[in-house]
């Protein structure tokens, strides 16, 4: 047949990559010694301006070109990039009242076009992204920032409207990448969207753009003006987009056609053989910070309520009972979910709500231990009696749960694992899923934001400072029709005692005391089962790297390409 004939004629090559970089394996790291770095993103980058990004893929692809003042390091502390040093309270960069932050910039930094990088460029980024008509996806820091001004060519002063304990809100991480003023000056406001510069930004980063085919491939070449003369190691970089996660995993782990594959979250049953095979070419660094959790609905999702359905002023018929929530948490087999579905590359079983700082107090709590018999006893002792159909009920209220999530192999298996245990102790569980593109909207009736179900499962990451994550459990943030389901408190949890802890956390400036308050808030949520945490997943995403690649330090708080200039082979 055709295949056989053609293959017979083809010259068999040892590996398809062939590798121009192979010769440099033993050479010490030096600029441009490393040939091509091949990266695969199954979601292809579509734009290279991080302020107009449509997803992580775009932030990552732009990060090789444009950089922030500082990056979030693996330990959650800022690492100076364009800044000469990270401002702190100790070095006087952060004012005592926590309202102004003074950033000193590195001197002699040049854009890839040879022009000088100055404080004006940094100040311009404020004008650009905080103009409402620019509609930047990075505009969140604008709410709390009063101004960003260039004091002199190497000094930038950030002024917050109020004392801001999260004083790195402006300046650190992918969201704060600095674009060139000269290039984007005419692209502010309504002109920002179809500005041609979005597809070919000039940056200060280790690489500059060679060719960009949106939705397909990005090719980069070394930036000759990069401030560190010994970096980057790889002469060129290619980000190939498209396909699916499984294909990307094959390219990194089996054929070695790619050095780095982004977000290889595929069923463990498929991934594990690729990893454990003798010929496996990949490794997965683990840095966990994405909480896979079950959000509990405290409002009543009964369709009979019509417009009032799941509104914060309604009360859930049985999930408002702490005993029922405790029973659910106690019979949730977190270890099985973590080990069977995520494995080491994917995550670890987790019972806390916040990831940093990590509370140790919850280890001994009964709601964090898997004990089906104890869970059943909680229901039995509190008047939830099994009916003839095996479903427990009290005062005519039956424990029938609708449990929804997005379509994703691991999540559907999680649903099954939890359902099996919950049905053992007298719940009736109906599981549903809808595609990620509709589930993660505030418009779909089966979406996560409207939450017309009793329980729902999804994951999200957190900042190194836990305040904003904890704030999603305060009364004021409750999702409702009135705010177009655009708030962060999806479960409509509301407890004045918890709100009080958050209030004091926001007012506190001493770091040790802040950590204490954060842990107190965490423990409060866990004890009251405001949410059922399951797995602390790999962040930013489970990324696979070729075993030959060295110097990769993944940070759970920043882009997976934040340290690409340090990668060698």
């Amino acid at each position, binding site marked *: 047949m*055709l*295949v056989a004939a*053609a*293959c017979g004629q*083809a010259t*068999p*090559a*040892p*590996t*398809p990559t062939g590798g121009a970089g192979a010769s440099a394996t033993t050479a010490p790291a030096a600029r441009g010694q490393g040939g091509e770095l091949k990266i*695969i993103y199954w979601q292809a980058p*579509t*734009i290279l301006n991080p302020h*107009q990004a*449509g997803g992580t893929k775009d932030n990552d692809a732009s990060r090789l070109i444009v950089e922030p003042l500082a990056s979030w390091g693996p330990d959650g502390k800022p690492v100076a990039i364009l800044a000469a040093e990270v401002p702190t309270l100790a070095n006087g960069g952060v004012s005592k009242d926590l309202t102004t932050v003074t950033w000193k910039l590195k001197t002699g930094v040049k854009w890839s076009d040879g022009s000088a990088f100055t404080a004006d460029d940094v100040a311009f980024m404020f004008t650009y992204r905080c103009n*409402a008509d620019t*509609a*930047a*996806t*990075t505009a969140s820091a604008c709410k709390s920032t009063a101004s960003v001004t260039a004091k002199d060519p190497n000094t930038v002063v950030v002024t917050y409207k109020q004392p801001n304990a999260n004083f790195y809100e402006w300046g650190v*991480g992918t969201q704060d990448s600095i674009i060139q003023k000269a290039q984007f000056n005419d692209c502010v406001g309504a002109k920002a*969207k*179809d500005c041609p510069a979005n*597809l070919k930004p000039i940056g200060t980063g280790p690489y500059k753009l060679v*060719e960009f*085919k*949106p*939705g*397909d*491939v990005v090719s980069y070449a070394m930036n000759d003006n990069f401030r560190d003369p010994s970096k980057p190691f790889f002469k060129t970089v290619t980000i*190939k987009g*498209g*396909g*699916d996660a499984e*294909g990307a995993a*094959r*390219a990194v782990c*089996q054929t070695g*056609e*790619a050095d780095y594959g982004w977000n290889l979250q595929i069923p463990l049953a498929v991934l594990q053989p690729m990893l454990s095979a003798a010929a496996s070419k990949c490794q997965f660094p683990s840095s966990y910070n994405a909480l896979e959790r079950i959000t509990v609905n405290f409002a009543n999702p009964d369709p009979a309520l019509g417009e009032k359905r799941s509104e914060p002023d309604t009360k859930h018929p049985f999930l408002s009972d702490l005993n029922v929530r405790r029973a659910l948490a106690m019979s949730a087999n977190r270890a099985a979910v973590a080990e069977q579905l995520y494995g080491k590359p994917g995550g670890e079983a987790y019972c806390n709500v916040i990831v940093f700082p990590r509370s140790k107090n919850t280890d001994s709590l009964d709601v964090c231990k898997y004990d089906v018999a104890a869970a059943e006893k909680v229901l039995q002792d509190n008047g939830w009696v099994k009916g003839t159909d095996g479903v427990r009920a009290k005062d005519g209220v039956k424990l029938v749960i609708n449990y929804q999530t997005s379509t994703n192999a691991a999540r559907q298996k999680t649903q099954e694992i939890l359902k099996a245990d919950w049905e053992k102790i007298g719940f009736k569980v109906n599981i549903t899923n809808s595609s*990620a*593109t*509709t589930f*993660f*909207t*505030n418009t*779909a*009736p089966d979406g*996560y934001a409207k939450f017309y179900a009793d329980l729902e499962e*999804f*994951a*999200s*990451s*957190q*900042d190194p400072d836990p305040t*904003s994550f904890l704030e999603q459990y305060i009364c004021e943030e409750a999702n409702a029709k009135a705010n*177009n389901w*655009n*708030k*962060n408190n999806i479960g409509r949890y509301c407890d004045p005692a918890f709100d009080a802890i958050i209030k004091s956390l926001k007012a506190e400036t001493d770091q040790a005391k802040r950590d204490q308050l954060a842990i107190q808030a965490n423990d409060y949520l866990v004890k009251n089962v405001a949410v059922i945490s399951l797995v602390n997943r790999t962040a930013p995403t489970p990324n696979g790297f070729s075993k030959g690649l060295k110097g990769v330090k993944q940070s759970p708080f920043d882009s997976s390409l934040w340290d690409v200039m340090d990668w060698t082979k």
Partner: protein
Amino acid sequence: MGRFIARRLLIAIPTLIAISFVMYAILALAPIDPLAQFALDPRVPPEVRENVKRSLGLDQPWPIRYVKWLTSVAQGNFGISFMTHAPVADLIWQRLPNTLAVVGIAYVIGLFIALPAGIISAIRRNSIVDHVISSFAYIGFSVPTFFTGILLIIIFSIKLGWFTFLYDSRLQVRDFETLVAQIKQSIMPITVLALFDAAVLTRYVRASMLENLPLDYVRTAHAKGLGERFVVLGHVLRNSLIPVVTLVALGVPAVFGGAIVTEQIFHVPGIGELLVTSIGTGDTPVVAAVVLLFAVLVVAFNLIADILYAVLDPRIKYA
């Protein structure tokens, strides 16, 4: 004939408008959010996402968006993609060569396999050769392309390491070396698609030949003392090809539409891949343009098929 074509072209306009309306309505009513990827990113809060959606014009009611879109399409402007903020036409042009280089070539190869296979199968009816060809044809169109695709990847990329399954659209064929590289990166998707196309077309060629073989004019030709080869190729094949040619013409729009599954598996950045990712990200302008393009091609090639039919078969006349 001229009047027939003119009438058909006029009918095509309302047809296309109806298609575009239904398609746009479905897209607009589907609760897909172009920023769903950021839904749970704490750094992209809901009010920021709302503002971006407003800037994309998504706060307007969809019938208004449809009328605006239709007006600009009528002027040849397909709009700006939500994701890349670049003209949609550019994205389509960028991908068309990849689709034609893989799906188009596969279709031609499929046709060249199907013709001899179908003819031999028909004239040697019920022989071993016929059974072998028919079996392959059945397997070809009953085994899905996502299966054969993965199978080829496992054998030729992973086990043998001969071919890449990451299609590089930047490769330009300039000399022998780049030609070899192009063959190496496209041979697997082409094989998968060509086998499928060949399987379908073989069945048609065979059936059509079998219909013609027992007819009177064939007996007459034999009686005249014409050679077997001339009877089959000169008479039977010519007449048998009439339905096949129209079928081939009707299949051409599918070539431009790309092969969604195969393109995805082999990372070919073609039209099909563009369509799928755009649906996933709620990039309405791109989806609308690709679907409309597809509709135009279907209408056009239907007309071409009808015209070809009249040209090939003198018994058919359009008034």
